[in-house]
């Protein structure tokens, strides 16, 4: 039980995918302009990441390893992720057309979110079990969501700030993310 808690703590805070490992920065900067969009994106990414972690575990252990074709790992994971994203896209299009419109190009772009592939690859590298892989995926997604949602609330405030012209928009966002990354270093050593 405690090892599962350690996985969650590690992926959400200590090795946060965005602020410590710097994966998944494009949606982090791209969809953090409004809080509502960020919450929608966080939900979609959580769905995709967890499902992709499960599917890639299954594909790796029940297809690639028995057939002895582990060298096709990356390409098969990408395929799996693309399928899951397509599934999520159809799901959101039917259930929340508004969110679908708002997320726009960033929804299919979850496919190229390096955090998703990163989770799948790290799972196989660490030889995580099925439950560990699922938790790893979910924890990574929870950490991503946490940071994305907090960051979007902050960016809404930043948009009203008297930022010097050269630093407006994405630049000050990057600096903020950098300062946050410093703060997240305080969690080092927890797990």
């Amino acid at each position, binding site marked *: 039980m405690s090892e599962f808690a350690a996985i969650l703590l590690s992926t959400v805070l200590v090795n946060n995918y965005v602020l410590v490992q710097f994966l998944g920065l494009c949606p982090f900067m791209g969809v953090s302009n409004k*809080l*509502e969009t960020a919450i929608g994106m966080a939900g979609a990414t959580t769905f995709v990441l967890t499902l992709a972690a499960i599917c890639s575990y299954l594909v790796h252990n029940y297809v690639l390893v028995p057939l002895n074709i582990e060298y096709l790992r990356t390409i098969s994971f990408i395929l799996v992720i693309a399928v899951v994203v397509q599934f999520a896209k159809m799901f959101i299009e039917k259930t929340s057309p508004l969110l679908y419109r708002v997320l726009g190009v960033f929804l299919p772009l979850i496919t190229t979110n390096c955090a998703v592939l990163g989770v799948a690859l790290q799972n196989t590298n660490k030889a995580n079990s099925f439950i560990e892989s699922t938790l790893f995926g979910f924890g990574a997604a929870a950490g991503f969501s946490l940071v994305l*949602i*907090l*960051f979007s*609330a*902050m960016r*809404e*405030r*930043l948009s009203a*700030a*008297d*930022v*010097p012209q050269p*630093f407006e928009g994405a630049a*000050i966002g990057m*600096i*903020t993310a950098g*300062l*946050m990354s*410093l*703060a*997240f*270093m*305080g*969690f*080092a*050593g*927890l797990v």
Partner: protein
Amino acid sequence: MALIKQSSPHTRGQTDTTKIMQTVILATIPGILTLTYFFGIGTFINLILASAFCLIIEASVLKVRRRPVGFFLKDYSALVTAVLLGVALPPYCPWWIIFIGSLFAIGIAKQLYGGLGYNPFNPAMVGYVVLLISFPVEMTRWPAPTSILTDSQSLPGLTDALSLVFGFASPVLLDGYTGATPLDAFKQNTGLMADNLYASQAIFREAHFAGAGWEWVNVAFLLGGLFLLYRKVFTWHAPIAMLASLGFCALIFYDGGSNTSGASPLLHWFSGATMLGAFFIITDPVSSAVSNKGRLIYGGCIGIIIYVIRQWGNYPDAVAFAVLLMNFAAPFIDYYTLPRTYGHTQSRRATDKIDTSQRR
């Protein structure tokens, strides 16, 4: 509607930014004096250098941005940042540590976001965290409080202090006065029962209720904080919530002093930067949450994060990290803790849609 013309004398508001900032600086004086009593002249050198650097950097950025320099310097906010940074840095640290800290505090964390009122993070804490991560050796070299120094050790005098700060002192001088802080000593403890630890370390042996020297520094900052509370510079919500949650966490994991026990609530309250953080840093009106309910959540979370990092993380003290992390969360907390507006029975969430058809 006719405007009624009022002739002089006008009453003037009691609180403007300058007044508040001056009061804050005034309230740090007991803490600064206690620090100086226990750690020597180094704190004063820190304060002077930090004030000079912060004011110069603030002035030059304002100049570059073509803003009125004198007007913004006169609000004393840069000086408050300098005082908080100078107090937080270890005495006798090299001058360039203070310069880099001031540069990040004023230049990046404050002016890059548009100056006072816009900074999402507490400037002094940004400066401190940047330094702590980049220069861990210099930043953890705290002097031992003067009451526990042995006969062969002594705090540096003014000349020695200046030569330490400006970098022509021999390293031998350093060993003459440095020592572990109470939180350090507790963190480094592996396997000793708390009673044995207290007996073996002078910093606990000479202490009355927390750690020698440090307990009085914290008491002094507590007094300053209570003065600010009395002057209504800030509300009680954030500091009390932080101290309560920190004490509560400490109480849960404190089992009376076995070798796996956490530190006692008293040790947590009265060592490190707890009181400085509770009353001078998390109460920063710009970077904290705005509503009273929001401040309770904000302060409470800071207390929990401080305890978690102190107890299980790498760093012995965690006020700066916790403050930055919750600064990051403050806008989100504000979103969901909007106070009820006058005339409405329920508070509204910022994300709620306003139904225009029902508006009268």
